[in-house]
């Protein structure tokens, strides 16, 4: 049963990811990204990371994709054509793909991840555990992230302000 759910979710996610890459219209791409994130959230639920699935839907699907759609409509753009491949590009792509497949094969054959320790209690589900970790072990990263968000906010304000020269012309 879980295998069926995993297979269908992963096929759905991969198809939507391909839709992001291949769709000609940028709005369709953003919608495919939304569906892909929903699939990832489903996979998180399957991994018993319920809180992360919720946060993913809230932050990515709620904020990031909405921001993307807003900018696409603001700039009124089309997706543009997919780049065509010629000569050296095809060769480089084939070599890179072969390397990736070889690496994944080695990972799957030699890594033997599947036979690790059996799954214990579902650690990912408890909000209390997360907050304990965030405020003890990872307190410094949380502070750094706060500063990062502050700097990003200031950067966006500076970037989106019009230059004084352009204001003078209008």
């Amino acid at each position, binding site marked *: 049963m879980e295998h069926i759910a995993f297979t269908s979710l992963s096929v759905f996610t991969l198809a939507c990811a391909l839709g992001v890459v291949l769709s000609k219209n940028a709005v369709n791409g953003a919608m495919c990204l939304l569906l*892909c994130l929903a699939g990832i959230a489903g996979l998180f639920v399957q991994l018993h990371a319920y809180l*992360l699935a919720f946060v993913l839907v809230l*932050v*990515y699907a709620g904020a990031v994709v909405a921001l993307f759609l807003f900018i696409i409509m603001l700039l009124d753009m089309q997706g543009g054509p997919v780049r065509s491949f010629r000569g050296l590009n095809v060769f480089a792509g084939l070599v890179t793909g072969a390397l990736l497949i070889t690496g994944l094969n080695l990972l799957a054959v030699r890594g033997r991840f*599947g036979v690790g320790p059996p799954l*214990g209690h579902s650690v*990912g589900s408890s909000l209390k555990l997360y907050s304990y970790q965030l405020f003890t072990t990872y307190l410094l990263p949380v502070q750094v992230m706060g500063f990062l968000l502050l700097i990003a906010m200031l*950067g966006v304000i500076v*970037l989106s302000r019009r230059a004084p020269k352009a204001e003078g012309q209008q």
Partner: protein
Amino acid sequence: MTPSLDSYVMLSAALFAIGFLGVLVRRNTLVIYMCLELMLVAATLALVAFSRFNGTEDGDVFVFFILTVAAAEVAVGLAIIVALFRARQTVRVDQLDSLKH
């Protein structure tokens, strides 16, 4: 019977590869940005899977940080794209070639 860790890692690698393919083949800056987000999400999927199969929650906590960095990155990046569009009236990477020799 749960799916093994291999399958999660494989799925995450495939998602990352699709996102990277998008970064290589698309010309629109916004679509490239969406593909970058896809790659970040693939990394979070691998982190969650590893943390679940190890029985620890450190990987899950790291996903929070990745989400924060991704949100900040999207905000700044989209502001840069809008500023670029104001200056050059285009966001296609093959027309933004001022730094090309």
